């Protein structure tokens, strides 16, 4: 593949990455990408079949097997030097088996046939041991068999075809630009590219090969005061994405860094925020994380049932029978969807890790909470209330070494059907704070009390941004916060943010997930000064 981009290609690609909400073009991109999606490797397919035969022979009533190979390439720079260049490959097989109602899981990096068979028998032995000591019942929702599933993340340019020198040059240029700004002393920047190729086989006859591409860029700028008495940092508001190298090109890091650096320096002399009640205008580069923490996590059904009580916690959205179709999350114009088909989403896929086709569904409809996130094991727990008998397709395992369980899909706040611009949202604010980017974030184990900071804060006075503020964080209670939502921006303000390393489960597993949202106005939120 041609890797040196000329100006014309550059512009085309920058445009392509920006089309997140233009569904027609997205569908076309998906269709053409899927036609080229690779099928299973013959030897991997043999190993999956061997493992499935071994678990069947050992008496498992159900099993799924994943062979995954994850490649990452990362490059990082500090000021005018490279701090790391590296590649990582991890390859192995994970086998999950059901005996009675008990799960057993075993995984190995050793892909020799006898090792795979022994690992399959170990998964069954672990399940059997648990079933003997603590017998339980487990029911799996039906799923359509997919004998030859293939999927690849839609992308223009495979990031692994871009030479490391080109990536280093982009980071150097980015850092150089930032260091031109007075007061900027330190800059780090990095780009990580990953390709996760996984083959899933189940005892029910599905065989699915998928390849996920994700890009994760970062820029962090530090401004230092003359006498070392203060320093301020500014993380660039750029997110990971399910995409190829064209996404990095579209970010224009080496041009936009000038603004980020100027903002870092300006934070040194910004006005300390006056604590109290403020209206907040939250930019999508900030709001995505608030959605992640206060809507994404509370609507995980395993939390509602107590499965995460020893770590991530439970949720205020419980028990299901008391909150489904009843709980008022926010105003009637608030709509939130779970969506594993969202363009550019880090959690976007063809099928989940149980072979359930990816889909989109309402979580909050006209302000009312209407559904959770489920897997095959969980679907029947709430079918009576939701009338949905099948899994919503949110099973995920971090890699071959990890057992699949319920993980967050892309959860996105839908934009205003009227195309309200960012300026119009600001104009609707008499006394408020505009927040850009993510700062410190923390939320309790039932997802009520949260505190979020940001990267850059602007005071809004009589509908206009007037000056920069510093040391801002807001504390709120989730239901009160979402019910204070007063205005949403339209489609033109809609953007995706993402977390590349969302933790859940014991042993903790990481999940990459995106959240789309427009700019949004909230009334009378409690703001504190964190200095």
């Amino acid at each position, binding site marked *: 593949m041609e890797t040196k981009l000329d100006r014309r290609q550059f512009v085309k690609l920058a445009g392509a990455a920006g089309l997140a909400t233009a569904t027609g073009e997205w569908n076309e991109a998906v269709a053409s990408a899927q036609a080229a999606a690779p099928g299973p490797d013959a030897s991997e397919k043999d190993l999956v079949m061997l493992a499935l035969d071994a678990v069947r022979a050992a008496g498992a009533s159900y099993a799924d097997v994943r062979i995954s190979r994850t490649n990452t390439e990362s490059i990082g720079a500090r000021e005018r030097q490279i701090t790391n260049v590296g590649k990582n490959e*991890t390859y192995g097989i994970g086998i999950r088996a059901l005996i009675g109602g008990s799960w057993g899981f075993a995984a190995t990096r050793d892909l020799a046939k006898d090792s795979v068979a022994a690992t399959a028998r170990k998964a069954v032995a672990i399940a059997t041991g648990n079933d003997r000591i603590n017998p339980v019942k487990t029911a799996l929702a039906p799923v359509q068999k997919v004998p030859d599933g293939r999927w690849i993340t839609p992308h223009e340019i495979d990031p692994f075809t871009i030479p490391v020198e080109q990536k280093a040059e982009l980071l150097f240029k980015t850092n150089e630009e930032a260091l031109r700004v007075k007061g900027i002393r330190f800059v780090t920047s990095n780009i990580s590219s990953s390709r996760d190729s996984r083959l899933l086989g189940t005892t029910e006859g599905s065989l699915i090969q998928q390849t996920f591409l994700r890009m994760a860029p970062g820029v962090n700028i530090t401004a230092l005061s003359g006498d070392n008495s203060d320093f301020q940092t500014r993380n660039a508001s750029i997110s990971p994405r399910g995409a190829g190298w064209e996404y990095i090109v579209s970010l224009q890091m080496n041009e936009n860094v000038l603004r980020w650096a100027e903002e870092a320096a300006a934070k040194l002399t910004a006005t300390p925020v006056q604590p109290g009640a403020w209206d907040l205008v939250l930019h999508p580069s900030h709001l995505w994380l608030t959605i992640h923490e206060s809507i994404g996590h509370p609507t995980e059904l395993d939390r509602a049932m107590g499965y995460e009580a*020893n*770590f991530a916690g439970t949720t205020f959205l419980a028990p299901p029978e008391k909150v489904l179709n009843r709980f008022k999350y926010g105003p009637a114009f608030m709509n939130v969807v779970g969506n594993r088909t969202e363009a550019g989403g880090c959690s976007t896929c063809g099928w989940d890790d149980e072979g359930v086709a990816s889909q989109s569904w309402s979580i909050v409809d006209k302000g009312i909470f209407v559904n959770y996130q489920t897997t095959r094991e969980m679907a029947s727990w709430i079918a009576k209330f939701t009338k949905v008998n099948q899994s919503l397709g949110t099973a995920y395992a971090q890699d071959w070494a990890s057992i699949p369980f319920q993980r967050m899909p892309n959860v996105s706040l839908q934009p205003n059907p009227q195309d309200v611009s960012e300026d119009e949202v600001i104009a609707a604010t008499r006394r408020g704070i505009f927040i850009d980017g993510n700062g410190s974030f923390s939320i309790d184990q039932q997802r009520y009390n949260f505190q979020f900071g940001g990267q850059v804060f602007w005071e809004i006075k009589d509908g206009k941004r007037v000056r920069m503020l510093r040391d801002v964080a807001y504390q709120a209670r989730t239901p009160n916060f979402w019910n204070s939502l007063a205005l949403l921006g339209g489609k033109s303000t809609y953007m995706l943010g993402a977390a590349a390393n969302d933790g859940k489960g014991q042993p903790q597993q990481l999940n990459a997930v995106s959240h789309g949202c427009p700019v949004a106005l909230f009334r009378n939120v409690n703001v504190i000064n964190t200095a």
Partner: protein
Amino acid sequence: MQNTNVKRHGLSADESRRLCEKILGFARADHTRVNISSGVSGFTRMAINRITTAGETDDVGVRITSVFGKRVAAVDTNRLDDVSLQRTVADAEALARIAPENPEYVPELGSQKYTAVDGYYTSTGELTTESRARAASLGIKAAAEAQYVASGFIDMRAGSEAVASSSGLFGYHSGTGVASTLTIRTPDGLSSGWAGDEGSDWNTIESQRIATEALRKCRDWRGKTSLESGKYEVVLEPAAVGMLMLRMLGVFDARQADEGRSFFSKRGGGNRLGEKLFDEKVTIVSDPAEKNAETSPFTNTGQPVQREVWVEEGVLKSLSYSRFWAMKQGVPAKAGASNFIMSGGDASLEDLIRSVKRGVLVTRFWYIRPLNPRIISFTGLTRDGTFLIQNGKIVRPVTNFRFNQSLTELLANAELLGRPARVSADESSSAGTPVVVPPLKVKEFTFSSVSEAI
């Protein structure tokens, strides 16, 4: 028991040395370094009074770092056949040739002397699925008998790590770690109690005590009522102290201080070594040979990790120096802390509670995130058992709080220290960095708001 006759998980010293030599034999770079980590991890997880999942994974990770002049690159793989290893070496070398020069690159270390540490306990290495299930069942049984609901996690790791370089360096270490934690809740979800243990040695994990304590906490926390937020005297149980102190592990760094972006930076330049910054009862050390909290005696680059006193009687005694920063400053290099050990006193937790006129007892914390690096401040929440203390007695359970607190102020405000213990300090309860800390009584701890979460 540290029994050397049982076959250990992970590559042995001989197997590691042979693998390193094979890889170095494939290498054509000016310098090459090999890091290997290998072993098994096993877990049993329970919730709603049942074992929900359990599993075991074995893996070997190899990192090959190639250097040409000052051009450096590293490639990781877990494929160990000769063809894959040769390809990985070639990959690392190809990447290093085209990587821009790293002006901070310091030549590879030759042969080193390391502190002798055996952190491998067969009690942990040989822990079976059935043993884990039986330990988990104690928690389930305690909860079920009281008609409560248990959820918990047992995490074990057993394996080895090795480092070698083309300059003659070789280091090998084997170790184990295990953590067991339990949350018991009432079926109506209105109360929750937690207890847990962590160690290198499974025999130090008290499964029955964990079950009893989590149940007691859950019972005692029933009927909690609100208490206004504000500054309080607090008694922090060891797990709560450990969760905060884990955040101090990386802060004793000379470069961050010298560059003006740390609490330890001196106004006008330099650092605050030698200054009294904390209460004189505070002494913080790290030691890879600490019993039941052992760590590797070397870093990834092969730098020796030794016992180090970071804070002595409140005075900042040491900062870590990377090899580059040490060279630049003309001082010896010093690896950072690999575990966190805070000394304490003879007081029991009850003694600490008795000494409080009006304050709050905290079982553990949750979602701890940094706020202001200039004062090492964090936000987070209390969880699974929070109580009001009046005139030396626990008088009632209270709702949870969010805290916004500087850890440097906390160490300056420490008034009474109890007996140190190894604690489960990782929020996800995995067997992680060893943290040994006492329970603490601290004045003026800042609770910034109330959380109704249970």
